[in-house]
């Protein structure tokens, strides 16, 4: 089954992105496909390459990037929501790409299930 995931919140402040990650990981482990994760609202902050949590904490951006590399998950950051919050190509972490909101609607159309994680 193909999943699309919408992440509405940023890293660390709220558990939403962690829940989304655990869900995606379990879905992949069960043989499903996570086609695209769309980062919207403060969720765009998850794609900031300057994120540097203490070493003994989970590195949220890196976890997503690793998942994307290993399993072909398309990590898309909303351009408009990103610009509002200072997230642009210069600050974008590896593994993510910036695109329009249409990418969210598109995965909603193409995926078998659309999941939302937010606050």
């Amino acid at each position, binding site marked *: 089954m193909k*999943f699309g995931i919408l992440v509405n919140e940023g890293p660390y402040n709220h*558990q939403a992105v962690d*829940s989304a990650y655990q*869900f995606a990981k379990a879905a992949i482990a*069960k043989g499903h496909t996570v086609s695209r994760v769309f980062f919207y609202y403060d969720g765009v902050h998850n794609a900031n390459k300057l994120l540097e949590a203490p070493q003994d904490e989970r590195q949220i951006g890196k976890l997503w990037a690793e998942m994307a590399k290993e399993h072909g998950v398309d990590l898309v950051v909303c351009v408009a929501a990103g610009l509002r919050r200072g997230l642009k190509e210069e600050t974008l972490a590896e593994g993510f790409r910036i695109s329009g909101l249409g990418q969210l609607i598109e995965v909603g159309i193409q995926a078998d299930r659309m999941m939302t994680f*937010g*606050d």
Partner: protein
Amino acid sequence: MLHTVNKSPFERNALASCLAHATDGAAILLIEDAVYGATKGTSVAAKVEAAAAKCKVFVLGPDLAARGMSEDKLIDGITVVDYEGFVDLTVEHSVVQAWL
């Protein structure tokens, strides 16, 4: 329909609103801070028990454990699932609605 709720019922109305919209046969999964709503003896327990009679109510085990909520304190009829069980629920139900 699978409904997910992630708010403590003592802070916001997400669970109450979800329960009011969940129809017979729907599934409700409590995650994150909503897991507090799955325990016995709270002011919302009666509503959750009533929901468990007409819907299937689930709670995410890792979120329960993280918060020190023991599984033996759960309201009767609530099933504990892990993240893989969460995925299975989304496969069984064609639409998922998040009550944020």
